């Protein structure tokens, strides 16, 4: 039975309540037209756009709207998703991030916290965009934004974030694979984006979305929908080292940008402790199965393919399964 409970949800967006071009309503309309089922509004150091929409009744909008905020500090940008209050960013300094996040989690029980564009260029070209905090324990975060902005696979700093992410998960830190469009303005017509696919209940409740991020029930896709069946296991789960039948089905996504760029010639990769153990062609709408015994550590999956004519680009990246 394939898992169909993963939904496209945008985690990083801005309005004219900070430095975005959109009114909150325009942003929601665009997100709905694109094919997202939900969106976190994460303006810089404020959630006032969310409150503006909340005052107009969130139920009248066609997609789920979630509260978020991007702490936009001098030494890094930190995405806080699911906050119920706004929180002062000015208390942060380069050494106290662990303590600030601990205090934040004590105040807000149902939040997910991620590092935005950790390797983007920093001050003064992009103020605070490069993550420079001295962090004692990376497990205070739930995710690293490994694909930021539009055309993310062509952005150099996302390669660095991806490399960092693989190192962190292989140290045993539970970090979801997630992306952020960092949506400030109308997209270029030819652009592609990385879409965060997040497991949620049918209502796409905030609680279920946050819980899924915290448990790494997520994957990133440039458009195709990856369905899978690992028996009782899911992405982000801990499993025993034993033979498992891994079943996959790749379907074409229906996002509004799908004709703007070209993806084809897909291969499915099993990556066990950063070693590619299986690499097989995969086609839309054909089920593939593999009986595989993973080694202890991390097991994750990627779909690679030709992206705008460039071979071996990442099309889908899943969060890992942790093999104990």
């Amino acid at each position, binding site marked *: 039975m394939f898992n169909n409970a993963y939904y496209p949800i945008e985690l990083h967006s801005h309005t*004219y*309540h*900070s*430095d975005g071009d959109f009114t909150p309503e325009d942003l929601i309309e665009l997100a709905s037209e694109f094919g997202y089922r939900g969106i976190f509004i994460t*303006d*810089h*150091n*404020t*959630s*006032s756009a969310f*409150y503006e929409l909340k005052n107009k009744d969130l139920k009248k909008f066609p997609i789920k709207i979630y509260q978020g905020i991007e702490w*936009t500090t*001098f*030494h890094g940008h930190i995405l806080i998703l699911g906050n119920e*209050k*706004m*929180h*002062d*960013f*000015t208390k942060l300094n380069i050494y106290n991030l662990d303590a600030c996040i601990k205090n934040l989690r004590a105040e807000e029980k149902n939040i997910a916290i991620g590092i935005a564009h950790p*390797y983007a*260029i*920093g*001050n*003064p*070209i992009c*103020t*605070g965009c*490069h993550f420079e905090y001295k962090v004692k324990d990376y497990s205070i975060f739930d995710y690293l934004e490994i694909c930021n902005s539009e055309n993310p696979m062509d952005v*150099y*700093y996302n*390669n*660095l974030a991806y490399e960092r992410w693989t190192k962190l998960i292989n140290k045993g830190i539970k970090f979801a694979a997630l992306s952020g469009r960092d949506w400030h303005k109308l997209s270029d017509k030819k652009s592609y984006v990385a879409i965060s696919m997040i497991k949620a209940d049918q209502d796409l409740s905030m609680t279920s979305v946050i819980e899924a991020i915290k448990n790494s029930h997520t994957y990133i896709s440039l458009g195709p929908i990856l369905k899978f069946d690992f028996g009782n296991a899911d992405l982000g789960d801990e499993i025993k080292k034993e033979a498992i039948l891994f079943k996959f089905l790749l379907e074409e996504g229906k996002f509004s940008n799908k004709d703007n760029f070209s993806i084809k010639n897909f291969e499915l990769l099993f990556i066990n402790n950063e070693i590619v153990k299986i690499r097989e062609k995969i086609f839309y709408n054909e089920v593939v199965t593999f009986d595989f015994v993973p080694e202890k550590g991390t097991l994750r999956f990627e779909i690679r393919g030709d992206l705008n004519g460039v071979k071996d680009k990442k099309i889908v990246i899943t969060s890992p399964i942790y093999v104990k």
Partner: protein
Amino acid sequence: MILLNDTLQLDNKNTLSHKKYIIKLARAYDQLLIKMCYSPAYVDQEKSDILIKSCIDKYVPDFYKNSFENINNFKVENLITTSLKYENEYLGAYHNKTSNQEIIISPKMSSLGYISHDVLAGDYALTLSFHSVNSEITLKLLVEAKDVQ
């Protein structure tokens, strides 16, 4: 009632720091008005070119430096933002490169970046955040409590 009227001379020693003002309101008002303007908004081209080169050297690994070949006419902007707290409750911020800002806090409608909030008696903390100060900047700040009749 004017609560604060200040002029600051800033330079790159101020960059990446905050300046906090505590403002005490003895009684409730209809609205709080914050006016902040600074100049220049942009760093001059010569200085900007030096900053950009140094920024790329610091943050971009050699392998990727060619991504920045077309950055020639980019000008570094100065960026100063406001944020406000009332009795430790965070009311918002306006993180935008507009160098001339007029912010209103009121119960029915506040300016972009801020939540609507009663202007009650008590302590307000207004913070200026110097995200990028890379010129010799003059900043003017005025905070006023008003009754709208």
